[in-house]
């Protein structure tokens, strides 16, 4: 599984939605379950899965897959 697949599947698992429903365009705007508590879980899960730490200002931007991907790229992950 490459990093993109890993990112999509981790977010899908945390949100409890089918893996196929998560793509780069997925966000709080189009996924109802993506609320503030889900963000806490997404942050914790991605920190575990990718072995990274997000800082507090980055978490504020955890509203879409696209932005999360950019943050992860900023931490040296290849997509």
């Amino acid at each position: 599984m490459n990093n993109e697949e890993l990112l999509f599947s981790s977010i899908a698992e945390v949100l409890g939605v089918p893996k196929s429903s998560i793509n780069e365009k997925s966000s709080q705007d189009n996924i109802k379950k993506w609320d503030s508590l889900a963000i806490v879980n997404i942050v914790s899960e991605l920190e575990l899965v990718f072995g990274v730490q997000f800082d507090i200002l980055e978490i504020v931007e955890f509203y879409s897959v696209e932005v999360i991907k950019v943050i992860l790229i900023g931490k040296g992950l290849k997509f």
Partner: protein
Amino acid sequence: MHYPKKWPRALKKTVSQAYETKKLNDVRIALKKTDEQVRNEHEQIVNIGILRTFTIETLLECLRLSLTTIPCNPNITLGEIENIEQELFNKESIFLKSSPDFIYILWRLEELLPNLMWNIDSMSLEQRRDSFDMLVDRINQIISQYQGSAPLIISTFSVPDYWKSSLHDKHRSYGIVEIVSRLNLFLYEQASFGSIKIFDMAQWLSSVGELAVNKKMDFYARQPIAARYALSFADFFSQVVRTLLTTKSKVLAIDLDNTLWGGVLGEDGIENLNIGKDYPANVYWRIQQVVYALKSRGIVLVLLSKNNITDVTMAFDSLSMPLKLSDFSVVKANWKSKYANLIDASEELSLGIDSFVFLDDQLFEQEEMNAFLPSVEVISNSGDPLNLLESLSDNYFFDSFLIGQEDLVRNEDYKNQVSRKNLENELDRETFLTSLDLKANIDSVNDANLNRVMQMISKTNQFNLTTKRHSISSVKKLMSIKDNILLTISLCDKFGDQGIIGLCIAINSSKPKKELIIDTFLLSCRALGRDAEDALWCGLIRHSNNMGYEFLRASYLASSKNMQVAGFYNRMGMSPEANKDEKNIQYTLNLPQQENCPEWIDIRFMEIINEQ
């Protein structure tokens, strides 16, 4: 990790995986599997209510998984953040309507005294003390006003992060650190009075370390527990419920060679056994100290050793060790299999096999016990002495909230039980009972015996007609009503004093016709077989007659463990009402009745009834 014995191996593996990876998705998979495979198997439904000053929503799945391993079927209801009193005292609250069986209060100083937290340096000593007093008053009010039957489980306080390294705070009166200590002391005191149970969150935080708090998530969502530590938190959380729900094991059956000392007695000889103050002998010394401590708090010790009894006796006589051979209620040193010896010991002690825990360094012995007596709890260990010690210290089979006088004399009592059994085998029943020289005291429930009463209410399963688990506040309320009858019975015989072994609670029904309803009638299993229940019944009848009651009502509520008392009220002369429900049989009896006290018990009735 400890799993229910009946869980399939594959399920245990899935749950272990979740504990290993700590990934939310693995926790969810494990929960789904437990839901599918064991949740439907009539597991006890347990409603847990949590009141809190911070967010724990994201921990709920971990909490559910941990609680499921008790085993039980947990439903968790959260109160609104910081709405502790509103949720607890408003009968219409959704929280109370969820009928919690256990209520947790999780709080932090940060949310309870924010002004003190950040302005303390500019506050006078008097102001600091006032802040503390105010919070203690608030906690006190919560505890004293709470009348529900669900145990109140309250978390201890930790020093907030900012103040942990402050030196000046530690050198002033009523600083944050001192206030936290005083608050925890207050909570421990309340727990010692039996008003609350402690969830020692401060101790959990200090044992797991600073990484357990995720400051980022605390700022972001007021969710301080780090995801990586969620299952550890959940296990610590479940420990209280587990201890309240499950019956404490009563007996430690323990091996000798390479378990209580290093070496094999028959091969190495007494002089070469490893037990003493130097390594590795000091590890075995500590194991013996732990076993002795268990004995001191009422755990019955049984020695199971494949050795000649003469060699074992000689070794205990020759060596200076924490344990003496006389500390064991039963000693089985022979060449029979351990499980066969355990069955014999269980019969001699009149204790069920399922109340035994087994510790042995040999994997073969552990496996054999698991295979032949699956209801015995085997303490799994590798045989390495340090691992033996840790496995013995870290298990929760013997956890309890209270150690009373009855626990302290239990070992002696069970030794007496073996003597009674030997005598019983020699004589017919009536001669045997008469020869015991039995004396019973019937007394009222009072402040002095309340702890023991609560212990019996929470733990007695077999001889328990209704299995009602009253809280201390509801028992106190029943005590305060003059027309109720609350009796205890204590028993002694020529072998020893067993202390309080039975309880009866009968409630005035408040009907014009003077009617009494038996709410609770129970007897400790240690006292079975000597008609102590007849003596307690006799006490109830005497006091009902004296108080002018005309009618007695009772019910037998069947549980999975109280089949043996299904016919008790019939035997006492009560008439069953026509009812098809075998699990809830109603009985009635017209009063006054003649007291039929057992002839072989010298019964002393204390001046009662309700002194409140």
